[in-house]
């Protein structure tokens, strides 16, 4: 636990719990934003060599996940006048419990994964899996569209952590493309959320089942 990367990752995991445990939408958005900022520091710590590539990724990630996307989401939240997640499918305490179970399982699983020796000691893989599972939990247990967008964001954060294992093998273009995808996805969701509210005067995604055949 002495490694600075691990300290960062523990904070990331704790933020998962924060996002899952609070009913306030503002808190979830801020939690996800803080997680994004912490993750932006990750490439700098994982890679001793400070190249322009790693720097660019860090700066872009921080700007996007720490400022731009949370800004968009908070604007959407103000526009639709929703502050709290009421009546999720799974309550806050049970979802915290599920998150804990998921994190424990993630640590267990990753012990068995065939990893490259330089990654075997760190928390990278368990944190990635735990964040992924938490993102899924938010996506599946919350009803409000904004919470679901946050879930998507956290899910992507998990994938980002996993991407650190591959940063040397992966071209810069892929990273940039993933970030762009994320931004466009959330941008569109922000627009969609507004339209959903205008159309149905509610943001409960539960009501959006008309299109099944």
């Amino acid at each position, binding site marked *: 636990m002495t490694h600075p990367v691990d300290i960062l990752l523990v904070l990331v995991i704790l933020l998962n719990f924060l996002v899952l445990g609070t009913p306030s939408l503002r808190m979830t958005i801020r939690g996800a934003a803080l997680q994004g900022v912490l993750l932006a520091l990750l490439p700098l710590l994982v890679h001793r060599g400070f190249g322009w590539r790693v720097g660019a990724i860090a700066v872009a990630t921080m700007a996007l996940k720490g400022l731009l996307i949370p800004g968009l989401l908070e604007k959407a939240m103000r526009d639709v006048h929703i502050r709290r997640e009421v009546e999720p499918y799974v309550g806050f305490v049970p979802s915290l419990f599920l998150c804990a179970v998921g994190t424990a*399982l993630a640590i267990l699983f990753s012990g*068995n994964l*065939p990893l490259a020796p330089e990654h075997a000691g760190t928390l990278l893989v368990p944190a990635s899996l735990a964040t992924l599972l938490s993102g899924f939990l938010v996506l599946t247990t919350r009803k409000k569209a904004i919470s679901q967008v946050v879930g998507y964001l956290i899910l992507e954060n998990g994938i980002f952590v996993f991407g650190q294992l591959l940063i040397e093998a992966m071209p810069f273009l892929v990273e940039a493309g993933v970030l762009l995808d994320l931004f466009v996805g959330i941008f569109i969701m922000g627009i969609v959320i507004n339209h959903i509210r205008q159309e149905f005067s509610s943001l409960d995604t539960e009501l959006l089942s008309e299109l099944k055949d």
Partner: protein
Amino acid sequence: MEAASPDGLLLAGAIALVALSGLPGLLARKGGSGGERLSALLVGAGALLGLAASARVLFLGGGFRVELPSPLPGGPLLLSADALSALFLVPVFLVPALGAVYGLGYWPEAEHRRDARKLRFFYGLLAAAMAVVLLARSGVLFLVAWEVMALAAFFAATTEDRQPSVREAGWIYLVATHAGTLGLFGMTALLARTTGGFAWEAPDGGLAVTASSSVVFLLAVVGFGGKAGLFPFHFWLPGAHGGAPSHVSAVMSGVMLKVGLYGLLRVVSLYGAPPAWWGGLLLLLGAGSALFGAALAAGQGDLKRLLAYSSVENVGIVTTGIGLALLGRSEGRPEWVALGLGGALLHVLYHSLFKTLLFLGAGAVIHAAGTREVDRLGGLLRKMPRTGAAFAAGCAAALAFPPLAGFFSELVVYVGLFRAFAGPDSSLLAAFAAPALAVAGAVALAAFTKLFGVVFLGSPRSEEAAHAHEPGRAMLGPILVLGALVAVAGLLSPLLAPGVDAAIRAWVAPAVPPGSVGELAHPVPPLAAIVPLGTIALLGVAFLGLLALVAGLLALRLRRASFDRGATWDCGYARPTGRMQYTGSSFGDWIAGRLTPSAAAPVLEVRPPVGSFPRGAAVSAPAPARDPLLLRLLEPFASRWARRFHDLHALQEGRLTIYLVYVLGTLVALLAWSALRGWVLPR
């Protein structure tokens, strides 16, 4: 065969021009005629380049082979043109070019603002994709081009997607083509496992035949046979070809079916000594297709569906030839190869000409009379004499009347079949195939007599038919050009024979390189050395000359003689009407009902006369959008399975959250599995 040969550049230019022909039109002003003219011009220019390259490869021994590096898995993209590809490239470039000109009159932008641009775009893409299929020598590139071809054909064929019958035929086509492509994926994978790569190039002496080769062959028969419309994989064909705009039907029926046959030829050419049952199976399928295709054609009440079924017959004839060639390859009989494949390849060329002519002619009839039902037409020869004359030439060529196009190719196939069962070590299957083809020819005669007789002779059976008129220049031009080509192409067979010989050598070559000891110990003799094509062509010219002389004399006498025009003697009826004529249904029912297996026989609506003074008795063949085989066998089968899977609908909840739970569940299960594996199996 160097990489930077002029042929490669010509073909690349041709394919690019044809593929992009529809693009400028997408940007041009809607409803304007600039885009459509430019697109026809581009297709025409591309076709000229492509035909020049094909002729070079066929007659001057050109060709090329390039390897393009590719980032995709499956190795470099291999493109190559030999004489076999070049021969199939001829219809691939010729027919779309004529069809594009025809389309200016048949589907003008001004009248079809909604879909004319879409049609032109996919039309060009279809033609270009077919050319790439013919040049592709690596499995990955082949499959990609194949899929582009299939999809472009889907979108072009469903141009009139507001009609439910066209949509339905389109879906059936899409399912059928993808089922076939699935087979081809399996075939490519199996082939890659035996050769160790995706390149479709045989080592010296050809690939050895193992147990998996037979699976490869069967998958090729299903995949390529489905595209070619071989019976019983033809069920998608009549609907799709019938519902498409006529020049698209012409490309699909006249050319795209041949691309399926080409694929089959290309894949079997990789094997040095195929087992005899491969050829036997193809002989059987070919003869069956010819017979049932002709019988089903006779039973059709729809102009274009009749022509589509006739394509099934002709594909059967070609496949019979291929089967004979394959049999010759396994038995070491070079003359069977020369005759079987020579006849098949000539028929590929000729069928693409006369079937295109017939479809374009049918389009002119539909355009003029506004109906596709044979039983509502009649007497059109007087209204549309030039279209009618060209159509008659097309029918006669399809029926292999000497000395028109179809005669020469069928003659070569027949000579081959006779050789195969008359000589020593005869093949019993060939002995059955020849009479089957003969019966098919007789039935086709009935079908086309019905078609031409009911549509063009007699008197009009409906108001629309009575007001038909000759089409405009853009449509009539290609029809007349094709009419002339059909009349002359057969006589040119002796000149085409060297090109066909080159294609046959290219088919045999990968397995038996010159100088090596292969199964086929003797070289394949040139076609003209076995069948005296030159003499027959000269006789044909003499016959045509005689015919022209007699016709000229008759015309001269008619002009001098004075005569009155009047109605035919009508047996004393007071008020004869156009309905008092034989109908197409009454003509075709007898044949179709007796000659096809009951499952594939056409559906007929019969209202027999009842009582002493019967009213309203009728026999009619309603034009169903579905093939009878599809209706009676495939659909019940499919709906049974659909019912079985019905319970799975419960999983489709409609709520996004539930779907995400499925994803989460799968993820956790996979993780658990990998973790468990880690515990159970020590690393």
